């Protein structure tokens, strides 16, 4: 990893030290290379870590800066004090987020795994099918959510039209629970399963073929081979996929924003499909309470980091 130094006198970088002394030379060049990125990184990834903490200790509204004031840990205390609006909204949305993680992650593992196994067959045109299965991943959350919002409409929606043809009295998908979650999970799975599928497919292709050949000689069935060879060999990748799927599902925002607007509103006033990211958006930018929204962000971030950490511990132990 030695820095490359001009070998002859009068090199264009004006460094003409003997090669043996090159490590002593200070040159500005590397710093100029990293400067543009490091500046933007510091401003938008380093500084916000601290300014976010600072804001979370204040009653803060960017539209009325004169009223901003230091309130210590009050924003955090509110989040953990039953009876406050923040407590109710935050933990309701937290509960919704956990529900969504529980509904979506298993589906986002099982379906991509089955698709990857199918696409791992040595037949013609698998690349075409792989391309088709992956395609929805390139769309925006806006397009995805609008399409499924329309498909799940009670009136004129594709799914209910077919259900009526079959003679089933269809639910009002987006306006009732738990069917609103079904709609959101279906849209999410359609949109993102291709990503998990591609990673699992790459891992499948890395499994040594002679394992299967040996098992075939021993008379193992395909089902046996799937559970005794494929799954164990995929385990590290599966843990990784589960981790990133949990994190992605924790960040749920656009789908309910377009499809349900966080509703349906329950009798208690709680919003049925409002995940925590949506709650942070409303607290910070609809109710203009950026201090409280920052506190919520930090609590969620800590929870997410803990989840990732636990997952990777599991990953390391079994590796």
């Amino acid at each position, binding site marked *: *990893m*030695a*820095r*490359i130094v001009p*070998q002859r006198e009068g*090199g*264009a*970088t004006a460094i003409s030290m003997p090669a043996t002394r090159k490590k002593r030379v200070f040159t500005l060049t*590397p710093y100029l*290379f*990293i400067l*543009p*990125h490091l500046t*933007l*990184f510091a*401003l*938008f*990834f*380093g*500084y*916000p870590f601290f*300014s*976010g903490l600072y*804001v979370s200790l204040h009653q803060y509204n*960017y539209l009325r800066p004169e009223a901003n004031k230091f309130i210590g840990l009050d924003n955090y205390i509110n989040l953990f004090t039953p009876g406050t609006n923040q407590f109710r909204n935050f933990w309701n949305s937290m509960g919704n987020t956990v529900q969504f993680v529980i509904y979506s992650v298993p589906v986002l593992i099982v379906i991509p795994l089955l698709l990857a196994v*199918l696409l791992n067959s*040595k*037949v013609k045109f698998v690349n075409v*099918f792989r391309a088709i*299965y*992956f*395609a*929805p*991943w*390139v*769309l*925006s*959350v*806006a*397009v995805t959510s*609008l*399409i499924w919002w*329309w*498909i799940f409409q009670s*009136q004129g929606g594709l799914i209910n039209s077919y259900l009526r043809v079959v003679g089933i009295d269809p639910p009002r998908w987006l306006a009732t629970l738990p069917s609103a979650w079904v709609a959101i999970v279906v849209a999410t799975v359609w949109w993102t399963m291709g990503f998990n599928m591609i*990673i699992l497919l*790459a891992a499948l292709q890395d499994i040594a073929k002679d394992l299967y050949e040996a098992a075939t000689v021993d008379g193992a069935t395909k089902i046996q081979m799937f559970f005794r060879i494929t799954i164990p060999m995929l385990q590290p990748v599966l843990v990784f996929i589960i*981790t990133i799927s949990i994190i992605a599902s924790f*960040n749920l925002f*656009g789908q309910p*924003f*377009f499809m349900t607007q966080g509703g349906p509103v329950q009798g208690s006033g709680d919003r049925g499909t409002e995940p925590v990211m949506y709650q*942070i958006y409303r607290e*910070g930018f609809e109710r203009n309470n*950026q201090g409280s929204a920052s506190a919520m*962000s*930090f609590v*969620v*971030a800590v929870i997410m*980091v803990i989840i990732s950490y636990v997952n990777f511990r599991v990953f390391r132990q079994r590796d």
Partner: protein
Amino acid sequence: MAVKAAAPASTAVGRRVGIGRKTLELILLYTLLVVIAMIILLPLAWMFVTSIKPKNELFTRDPQWWPNNPTLDNYQAILNNPTTPIFTWFINSFVIAAITTVLVLAIDALAAYAYARLEFAGRDKLFALLLATLFLPGLMFVVPNFLTINALGLLNSFPGAILPGLGGVFGVFFLRQFFQTIPKELEEAAFIDGANTFQTFSKIVLPLTKPALATLGIITFLASWNDFLWPLLILKDRAIQTLPVGLRSLQGAYTSEYGLMMAGAVIAAVPVLVIYILSQRFIVASAISSGVKG
């Protein structure tokens, strides 16, 4: 090609019954593959079909997969409506995605080369610090970055929409890996010939990294084109919004005008689908490499 490879498996022993079974398995497999492909493509087809339906054909008793009177009225209606300036949104999305892509490539390539090849005090510690932020949830940066953009007076502007994304670490990490695979001898030779660090970087290293730059460029463009939450917060005026944010305005501006909304969705979807069809290899490769990073 692959079918031939499978052929030897049906050996003489199993040939009498084996070939029949193999063929049957193959037919089953293809049927399954095709059915799944159709299920995945149906929502896109429905989006497109809805967008060319006249309003009176939207709510039929049985779903109609082709309108009796196909029409472009929905497209004309949203294109000619000043409250839903979809053409402007398209241009805004394109300009923001293009500028973001060019700047990310330039900034990240410079930094990645330094972290991969140049020697300076604290290099590896600094890079480890950058990497660590990849594991931090993005949502914790949203509120403070919004306040920073506001303090800089950049709310409601393209720079406000573009700047925070340029500090991201993924591109630096991604390109650094490729720079490390280039044989050092090439750069040393360039130095001997009198090239300075920047010349070596731009004339020798960059041309060798074109596939990686293309991959990063495509995913950066797609991510920017599709980004929703950040432009939703920053771009308040309709005239400077991007397509995904505009689609929300479109959804709010009409009730039950699903033809119009699907026309808007088609306009937002077609460019990325075209890019995807043209550069599928790069996109799939980048998905794998971004997945393997963990």
